[in-house]
């Protein structure tokens, strides 16, 4: 018999290790793409009286994805909404496969919509259930449903075929171009703000037109985007995981300016008794905390929509900048005075009504015309 030397033992040891490695993670946990139910948007509702939770999963219909040879699905709906009810999230997950033939894949959902009644009752469980799951993305934005959940979750959107994608894209545009949506609206932001006893303002999602859309061909066959669509409008103030108030568009702009969010917004101001539409964007933002908190804002102005009037001299321009700054300052002060009533908090500032606000504005972007016709 050949004695076992280290030389002969080594390959055997390598083989044993290699076989052991196969046991660590193996092909039995593999999942093909066509075995997945890809969720694009989740809706959650809770009946405050019975405690019954209803989850809506909008799942992509892969046949409608556009390829070079066109859409294979024809007039099929791009998403299917699966509705499951249960007493807990665990129970919902347990029974969903009674209806769903594929493995639920929630790593790609683009938005979570929470019904208003559930938001008013408390959103703590939602934050926890999303954070606790390994594949549950805490960076996904949370929206509050302004209409019944089944109506929202069964509404298809034109142009962007997946409603979750459509909502996600609109949130970005509203943040950058209108300052109607804040930067911090993800699940993790809700958790962070609530733990700091601060508020968070989440966008509100509503339906327009004849939603819910009966079938996909009515969406693709009509020219009017309002026949069936979703709309983001207003903001829901969330404190202690509960919705406490709604904000309108002007209040949203004021609130996000006071938070230091940078995004373009458009307003009409009265300058020397004449209206002028200005684009503005927060340039610099600074805060001083203490007994007498102070917020200083510097606005960059643009003339992109100022067709009503345009200053003709340096003095006129400076007057205009001053008046715009004063107007914004007054609106912000007014918002601060109402803050407690609206349930809104400002980070690390106990009494928003005591905040001193300084605003100055400077024209940074001129238009293509120096004088409107």
């Amino acid at each position: 018999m050949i004695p076992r030397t280290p030389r002969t033992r080594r390959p055997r040891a390598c083989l044993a290790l290699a076989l052991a490695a196969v046991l660590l993670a193996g092909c039995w946990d593999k999942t093909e793409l066509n075995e997945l139910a890809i969720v694009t948007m989740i809706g959650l509702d809770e009946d405050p009286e019975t405690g019954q939770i209803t989850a809506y999963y909008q799942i992509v219909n892969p046949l409608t994805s556009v390829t070079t040879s066109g859409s294979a699905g024809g007039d099929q709906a791009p998403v299917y909404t699966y509705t499951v009810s249960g007493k807990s999230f665990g129970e919902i997950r347990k029974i969903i496969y009674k209806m769903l033939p594929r493995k639920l894949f929630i790593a790609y959902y683009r938005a979570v919509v929470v019904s208003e009644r559930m938001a008013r009752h408390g959103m703590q469980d939602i934050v926890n259930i999303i954070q606790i799951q390994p594949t549950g993305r805490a960076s996904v934005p949370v929206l509050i449903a302004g209409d019944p959940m089944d109506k929202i979750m069964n509404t298809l959107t034109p142009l962007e075929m997946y409603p979750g994608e459509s909502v996600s894209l609109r949130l970005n545009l509203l943040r950058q171009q209108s300052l109607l949506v804040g930067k911090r609206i993800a699940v993790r932001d809700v958790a962070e703000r609530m733990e700091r006893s601060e508020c968070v303002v989440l966008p509100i999602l509503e339906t327009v037109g004849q939603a819910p859309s009966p079938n996909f061909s009515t969406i693709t066959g009509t020219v009017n985007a309002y026949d069936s669509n979703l709309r983001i409008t207003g903001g829901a103030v969330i404190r202690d995981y509960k919705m406490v108030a709604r904000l309108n568009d002007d209040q949203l702009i004021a609130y996000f300016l006071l938070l230091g969010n940078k995004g373009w917004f458009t307003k009409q101001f009265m300058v020397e008794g004449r209206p002028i539409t200005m684009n503005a964007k927060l340039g610099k933002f600074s805060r001083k905390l203490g007994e007498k908190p102070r917020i200083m804002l510097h606005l960059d102005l643009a003339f992109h929509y100022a067709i009503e009037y345009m200053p003709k001299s340096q003095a006129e321009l400076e007057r205009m900048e001053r008046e715009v700054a004063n107007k914004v300052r007054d609106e912000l002060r007014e918002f601060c005075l109402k803050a407690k009533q609206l349930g809104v908090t400002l980070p690390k500032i106990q009494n928003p009504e005591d905040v001193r606000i300084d605003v100055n504005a400077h024209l940074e972007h001129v238009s293509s015309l120096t004088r409107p016709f």
Partner: protein
Amino acid sequence: MPVRKRLTGDNARKREQDLLARIREILGSPPDLVCHAVIPGDQATDPALCIYLETLVNRSTINDYVLGSLQRGKFSEMQAPGAESSAFLQEFPPNLDMEELARQAADVLVRGMCVVVEPSGPVSFVRVTDPKQRQVDTPVSEISIRGPNEGLAESIITSLGLLRKRINTPQLRFESMQIGYVTRTTVVMAYVENVAPDELVREMRRRLKAIHTDSVLESAYIEEFIQDRALTTFPTMLNTQRADVVAGHLLDGKVAVLVDGSSYALIAPVTFFELFNSPEDYYQRADIATFIRWIRLLSFFIAVFVPSLYVAATTFHQEMIPGALLLSLSAQREGVPLPAFAEVLLMELVFEIIREAGIRMPRVAGQALSIIGAIVLGQAAVDAGLITAAIVIVVSVTGIANFVVPTYSFGIAQRLIRFTFVILAGFMGLFGILCGTLFLIAHLASLKSFGVPYLSPLAPAYPADWRDVLFRAPRPNMGARPPMFIRNLKKKNRNING
């Protein structure tokens, strides 16, 4: 000096006939064996015999010189002292018996010489070799846009001449030896004295002399005998057809091995990063050369990892795929019967078969192969829902990236590794790829080429040599030659037996 016994009359004629018969017997009566009987003009005695293999000799030299001299009865050459082995005309030793003489005569005949048997004089042989060979041609496997395009030839004399033309120094050394008991192939070891480390030259000489084989028909035969490790897919010696590449490496202190009958020279030592270098890197501006070198590195990673990453991402780690891409891939997967792993493996195999067929197939049939490959196996298979379009793209990109590497043998290594990684990814996903990568790095770190660590000059680190690894510094800033990892062989006097 042995006294030659002069033969006359019947004895001489019988000796000639016996010798011719014996030679013919030893050679097996080949059809190209020619024997001329020439009667010298000045005396009407017995004829002299001129024997040669007409497929190996230069006929005009035979006609003009050998036969002419025999007819004139003047057949001699002044030999330089010590030039016996290379002289034009040599005599067999006079004291050989018939059997030994016939054996030696047959031996020189197959080397392309002409045996002349003078009736009453010595038996001699004349160097009239005219090997059938190609002219110096463009190297087919290593074309460059800029720079010389002279490839080594099958004739070793031509190849040596191409090297001499580039390195005009008396320090250029060629050591010749014959390897192969049957083929007795001329193998030449080339190096530049005082530039190549003595240890390296000694080791190469030792390894070459230790070869025991019947035949050497190509430099690959030699490579398998002298390479450091047989069980690796990575080449530990560089093979090239380009004369300028051989010259460049010789100037870097390396040793080249040229084999008669092969247009490929072997160069040692070689490191992993040198396999990414192309001769064109040194004929282009430094910034362009650096950019192209990075493209090659990127292509290496694409060629090795893209199919396995695709398999891992689509079957184990779907959350890593960007949303839009996930939806697109998901749509493509609908109705496809095979799992992604099997799809990739199958398509890679098909691609390898097409590639191999493309090399062997006659050029006229190449177009048919392209059509079958592109349309039938690509488009039709996708349209039929047998495979996804993404797989076709992955396999195509991988295949193209594989051709970017300048060293063909390294490209083959990449192909083998790619299959290993695909299997690992199919079983274990990214975890498998990570394990494979660690094994690969450990394996590369364990390799040596004639004593030089394969991953040098990065590991072990020789910062002085980094100017020509991932970046190619402008020539004035290139630093001294040869590189440190070569010079260190000399300095450390380390044992380089692998």
